[in-house]
């Protein structure tokens, strides 16, 4: 069963690289990011976060990235819309710095964790996360709904053709 985690991890890294390195074709980049999101959803389910895994696929892969694709199609950004980005030295230096940061991040937490804690019954299911969300964190929940409302209003105003 463990091998499945590494398969999902490989898919997600490949998808992320595919998105970042997609110079010509933005649609292909968005699709490889969809692969990353679905693979991450699988990893969440393996980490016993069932509700978050389902919501990851439902919201991220099923709505947010569709919105990205929709905007790309709306603006009709075809292959010849993008000039090639020529900065090989700058990109090489940034990749090296990125690798250095990654090595530092990984060495910080290697070996500093004990065994995982015993999980309570129904950990990560929609019932227990829902109970915690609606009892301990209910204010957070209500504020989030206000945030979504303001985002919706803002997007409608930004995308209108003219304000009359």
């Amino acid at each position, binding site marked *: 069963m463990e091998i499945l985690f590494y398969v999902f991890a490989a898919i997600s890294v490949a998808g992320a690289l595919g998105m970042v390195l997609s110079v010509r074709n933005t649609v292909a980049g968005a*699709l490889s990011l969809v692969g990353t999101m679905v693979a991450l959803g699988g990893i969440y389910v393996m980490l016993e976060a069932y509700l978050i895994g389902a919501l990851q696929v*439902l919201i991220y892969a*099923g709505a947010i990235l569709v919105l990205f694709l929709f905007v790309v199609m709306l603006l009709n950004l075809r292959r010849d819309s993008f000039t090639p980005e020529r900065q090989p030295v700058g990109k090489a230096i940034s990749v090296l710095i990125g690798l250095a940061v990654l090595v530092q991040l990984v060495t910080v937490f290697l070996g500093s964790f004990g065994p995982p804690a015993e999980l309570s019954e129904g950990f990560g299911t929609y019932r227990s996360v829902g109970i915690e969300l609606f009892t301990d964190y209910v204010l957070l929940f209500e504020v989030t709904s206000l945030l979504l409302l303001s985002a919706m209003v803002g997007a409608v105003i930004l995308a209108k053709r003219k304000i009359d």
Partner: protein
Amino acid sequence: MIEIVLKMLFIVLVIMGAFLPLITWVERKQSAVMQDRIGANRADIMGVTILGLLHPAADVLKLLSKEDVVPRGANRVLHLLAPVIAMVPAIIVMAVIPYGSTYRFGDHDLNLVVADIDWGMLYVFAVGSLATYGAVIAGWASNNNWSLLGSMRASSQMISYEVTMGLSVVGLFMAYGTLKLPEMAAFQDQTFRLLGFVEHFALVETLPAWLAWIQLPMWGIFLQPLGFILFLTCIMAENKRPPFDAPEGESEIIAGYHMEYSGMRFGLFYTAEFLEVPVIGMLVATLFLGGWAIPWLPQAAIIGGVTPVFGEGFATAFCMILHVVSFLVKTIVLIWLQMALRWTLPRFRYDQVMDLCWKMILPLSIANIFATGAVILFLQGRA
């Protein structure tokens, strides 16, 4: 392990192998019967035509033998990928739908569902939302303005109806208390007294016996009638079934997003669209029509009734077969209903489709949630 493979084989052989060709035939024959004509009956093998039942095979042969055309300037990889992405969610949704309950053979429990996951309906919604990509990419990859227009209509219609599809069944989840599809079907195996609500309003303690025999099976359609209508509308619109097929409007934008697809690529889109019909039927049957449950005959009653005569093993197997047959019958009724709706209602205009979603179905489904919550609170308060 071998059990899961056998269950998957059952679904593949019965639903995809037997139902799918039959549905293309039913589409033609039912529309013919409804329109008072004969329908397609010319395909024959050596002069033997059986009511046109050979037409699905003829269709497949025709699609397989056509030239594989990719339009110039189209992205070849995406053009090939789109029908595959359209087809996969339709197939894997069937993994959580139970076509039978749990049967005890000796000391072994046989649960007739491929994946018994706790959050079954969330899985259905998550996988169903991935189906959007098939339509989106097909239009983009064809390098064609009509296709792009069709695919933009398709994507906005599908993501709008996903929202209302989820909201319209929240009342049902509150009534059942679970997201697990096998548990929902098992919950619907019981009956409830139709006039039981009188006990709460009138001053009698219990319902008199001559009124208590009026019992309805505790199906979703009786607990949530508005939810049934809303969910059926939303799931038909989500899968772009007529009358919601504005994205593939044959008279407006010439087949929309699958215009540049011919041969077996179109065959995959065709299969995906016709596979959605039994999947919608199975899902709605499990949620609202009791799934595998036979009305007024719970599983215990069937097994208890047959055991004295034929023994327990045979009784369980008999009950299992009855349940699977009842599930398939309900699916067939819903397939008939979808076909009837297709050939009766004219196609909605695109802005009518979006208006229906956001201005009529969304407020109604939220009102349904409030009403269900109020009723549950009232019943719990009195009990």
